């Protein structure tokens, strides 16, 4: 479903601040696969999401979605294939607009927008139905401005908006990191439910190893722009947080030694 081939990305190339963000990344997701991505700061986790969403263009390599080469499309052109939830709960919704208006915008993802009314009675019923699945009571507050909602509520709404139009790819960028533990658990649970319900091909970046192990069908670990560990569903089920930490230390040691020897 998603094919990232030989992707290389360098920031500030040719300056003293030059930083290699991704090196020869090859990552392929089959339909319905739910991959969690972990790694230290600067490992390239967010860059891989931004390359996929079209916010960044790779220096070399290609990105294909469902067999279609989208490397040259910018973010809003790829949006018809991609649902996205950002780390900042404020980023995925429009605060000055009502819940139903936000949903109406999401409902038209990637379609040609015309002069039909944005919110209709039929859509409103559908929105209510979908909001009910969040179990936050938002279905009774369709005309409330989204800016009035709490961070957790907004993130749950963002998740719904990113997914209910069944995108080909779902990108989650540490979307529970800015929430308190209780809300993070809620959004985590909703994520598992919604991915399962729509059978979404998902790429989720997280800092939380426990979450990375609990969610998803496959886990990759990144370090300095490379994928250094790739666990399939079976291996992932057996793995524990200490295993991951151990793996991480091991690789880090090797890399550091290599750096020392150069």
């Amino acid at each position, binding site marked *: 479903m998603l094919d990232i081939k030989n992707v290389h990305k360098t920031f500030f190339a040719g300056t003293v601040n030059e930083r290699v963000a991704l090196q020869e990344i090859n990552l392929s997701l089959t339909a319905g696969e739910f991959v969690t991505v972990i790694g230290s700061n600067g490992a390239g986790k967010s860059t891989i999401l931004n390359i996929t*969403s079209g916010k960044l263009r790779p220096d070399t390599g290609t990105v294909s979605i469902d067999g279609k080469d989208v490397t040259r499309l910018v*973010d*809003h*052109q790829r*949006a*018809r294939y*991609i*649902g*996205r939830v*950002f780390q900042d709960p*404020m*980023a*995925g*919704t*429009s*605060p*000055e*607009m009502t819940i139903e*208006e*936000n949903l*109406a*915008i*999401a409902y*038209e*993802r*990637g*379609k040609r*927008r*015309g*002069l*039909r*009314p*944005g*919110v209709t009675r039929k859509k409103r019923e559908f929105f209510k139905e979908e909001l009910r699945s969040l179990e936050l009571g938002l279905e009774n507050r369709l005309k409330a401005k989204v800016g009035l909602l709490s961070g957790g509520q907004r993130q749950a709404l963002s998740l719904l*908006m*990113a997914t209910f139009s069944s995108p080909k790819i779902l990108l989650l960028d540490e979307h529970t990191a800015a929430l308190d533990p209780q809300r993070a658990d809620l959004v985590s649970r909703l994520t598992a439910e919604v991915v399962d319900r729509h059978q979404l091909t998902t790429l989720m970046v997280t800092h939380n190893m426990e979450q990375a192990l609990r969610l998803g069908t496959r886990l990759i670990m990144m370090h300095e722009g490379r994928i250094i560990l790739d666990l399939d569903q079976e291996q992932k089920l057996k793995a524990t947080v200490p295993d991951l930490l151990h793996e991480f230390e091991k690789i880090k040691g090797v890399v550091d030694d290599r750096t020392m020897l150069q």
Partner: protein
Amino acid sequence: MITAVELGLIYAIMALGVYLTFRILNFPDLTVDGSFTTGAGVAAISIINGMPPVMATILAFIAGMAAGAVTGLLHTKGKINGLLAGILTMIALYSINLRIMGKSNLPLLREETLITPLREAGMLGGIGAIAIFLLVALAVKVIMDWFLHTDIGLAMQATGDNEQMIRSFGVSTDNQKILGLSLSNGLVALCGAFIAQYQGFADIGMGIGLILAGLASVIIGQAIFGSRLIWIASLAVVLGSVLYRVVIQLALQAGLEPNDMKLVSAVLVVIALVLPQWKVFARVGGLGKMKKSLMGAKG
């Protein structure tokens, strides 16, 4: 005073245009000063050359849209700061407007205009004219309300509110800004065309400082009448425009001269910006929020 209300209702069309860019798109657009005169000039020269007034007015709207599109392109494709993009278009339009008009003042007194039937029926300066101007202003308001609730309109609202979000749903924010600026300046030029016909001439300097009148109308109206929902906000803009002209009229009656009005407008806007920073006034509903958006847009 009736003249002030008439003017306020006609200028409300311009204020609605300013509202579209300034509050919906969060874009302080200075093109207005130029595109208003463009509208007046296009309508005037077309009428003088024998075009039916309705056609001339529509043509003015289209010319205004073109001017707005230029600012939009400069800002989005040329990556020029929004304020500067507007200033560039505004100044370029000064020369273009002179080219359109051929000279700096075009009298329309003997021409058949949209206002002629009203004048001949003796309705100007009375309830009849006010009712008609009110209907026109409300029609523009209702169309704008409707537009902002269509799929495109919602996308435009979101473009002014959260660009990252609306891009992630497949909307080109560049296109939305160009469209919004075009529609806004179309309305401003439409207003210019009406004003030229109402006062019986088009003048190269008639748009100077007009953006302040537009801003003042939006700010005064929304501070007093609120802006919680689109239809309330746009109604507040129409009422704000009338109120602004009434204030100007009062200032004139108090002994100030027409040439002082730019200063009065500037002072009005400054008061609306500064007062909410003082704690006593911060609690006055709407003002604080208004200031936030104003400062945010300009900062």
